[in-house]
């Protein structure tokens, strides 16, 4: 699926995967996000995704009955953070980055927390 931006000097077409990549990068820049995981079982079990395929952890939909994009991100959080607050930060960041870079408004950002990564801080 693609998203169009019409202008009088030509159309611009943005692919889903571009939006997903932007959202993925924005998400992983958020503090408290220890990694992203694939959005469904077919795409692999909950192994952390590498930097190159973050988009597989992001769902992008453009429902006809809603204005703007609905983005879903699947994340692993670092142990010991306030998960609700991290999720809120992700929502703000993704909405801002995607909206700012593409010009397409984002109506919803759903955050699925799929796991927690424990790292020792005593070593």
């Amino acid at each position, binding site marked *: 699926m693609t998203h169009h931006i019409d202008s009088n000097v030509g159309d611009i077409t943005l692919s889903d995967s571009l939006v997903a990549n932007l959202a993925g990068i924005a998400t*992983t*820049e*958020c*503090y*408290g*996000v*220890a*990694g*992203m995981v694939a959005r469904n079982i077919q795409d692999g079990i909950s192994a952390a995704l590498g*930097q190159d395929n973050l988009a597989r952890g992001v769902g992008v939909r453009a429902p006809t009955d809603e204005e703007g994009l609905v983005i879903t991100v699947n994340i692993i*959080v*670092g*142990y*010991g*953070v*306030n998960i609700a*607050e*991290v999720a809120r*930060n992700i929502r*703000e*960041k993704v909405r*801002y980055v995607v909206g700012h870079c593409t010009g397409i408004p984002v109506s919803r950002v759903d955050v699925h927390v799929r796991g927690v990564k424990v*790292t020792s*801080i*005593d070593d």
Partner: protein
Amino acid sequence: MTDPTPAPTEITGELLHRMLVAALSNLRSHCEEINALNVYPVPDGDTGTNMVATLESAVEHVSVPDAEVSEVAGEVSIGSLMGARGNSGVILSQLLRGFASGVQDMDKCSPVEAAAAMNSGVKAAYSAVMRPVEGTILTVAREAGSAGEEDAARGGDLVSVARASLNAAREALERTPEMLDVLKEAGVVDAGGCGLVCILKGALIGLARGAGEPEREAVRKEVPGRESAEVALDNPYDVVLLLDAPNEPGAERGAALDEFGDSLIVINEGQLTKVHIHTADPLAVLKCCLQWGELVDAQVQNMKHQSLGQVADQQDENPVAIIPTAAGPGLRETFMRLGATRVVEGGPTMNPSTEDILGAVEEYVQCDRIFLLPNNPNVILTCEQVQKLSSGNVSVVATENIPQGLAALMAVSDKRDELSPEEVHSRMSKSVRRVKALEVTHAVDDRNYSGLSLSRGDIIGFADGELAVVGDSPVQVLLDLLDKCEDSRSHLTIFWGSMVSESAVQKLQRDVDGRYGDLQIEVLFGGQDHYHFIAALR
């Protein structure tokens, strides 16, 4: 009279709490500045507010401030986790969580242990992010942590470790625009990093605060500022109250308080009610709230003072700051008129604490040099203590009385901008010796002093700190003092104190004009307590 508190050698739970309270207070007073810097990760201008909320929750969660350091740190960690707001708030909570884990099982910690715990906080903060972004609060925290650790390894004490961390944090903050393009484009430093610098600075002030002082934030003293730079505020006092008064709906309370000011917020939290208001009359607000129930906590801050601090921050073109100590509205005003950067409130029997002076100094650390004029033998020690504690470049000109302080300031007031800090220092030091100080006060008890026997209530006159005249009328004693002085002087400035009557001043004016017509004479209101007259003869 002054007793500079010896610097603590270990962080106890009580000290940690005190440092965090001071950190919160300093962060709060810079909140708006930090908000204005916020362009990353989302430019919504709330970093300062978020960090304040996070640290507030951390501090409020401490139940027993004088418990073991591990316990206090643990409670702080939980409080900050629960109250974390925004990205920088979450990061702050991780720094505190790591610190808590670094001091686990300790009842107090040494400089080395404290520095190690700070680094454990940095490690925790880095471990909870997939892609740490440099040029943010993380970078600032890391640099602060490693500088603290190095200093501790070299045998630095707590103050020196805290100062090393603060300095490194400041430097790292300055470099953040080079690391993060969005900051460079906006021409700002990182907001979260700036918040951390404010926290470290506040912690250092808390560390320096004398033991035994109340750990709650004190009501700020009003400090006179430059009139021209003053920001007009109709409701200068920021009042935050916590009430234990369950039996009334918040809305009704809000309506009752509305008349006292603006920015009113009333929140009911279970049994407790939180009230926030900007007002011109904090006492009326307190009175009104006390009708409803018991006061759990109250904080009053003068925002005029805060905004003055910010105005002063912006005037950093001036390479040299001069901060005298003086008591009495007239004296303070005179110092300000002569070009003092700021006056610290204090004088005989009311010596300023190290913290008072350090707080003033820390506002001007960006100056090439900060000169302190103690204006009292007892304050010299305190100033020297501040010199050791401050991260700024501080010099103390050891003025022992008000006239010496004024002379020092006058020696450089006209061309301060053209002089190097060294020249300023040498001019001020030299001028101190050229002034004669005459002070008139009363004896507070019966005793023999320099071969004279005094009884309580006698009026006594000092020339350069030496008892010279005893009498029963302040005006007469001052005239006798003047008679004893050699006549190679050209200027006489007299400051009259708060207990001197208008008629006595008029009599003095007539007498000195008659007797010393060859001098240029100024008789000014000083407003000082205890001293009827303070006179400078040049």
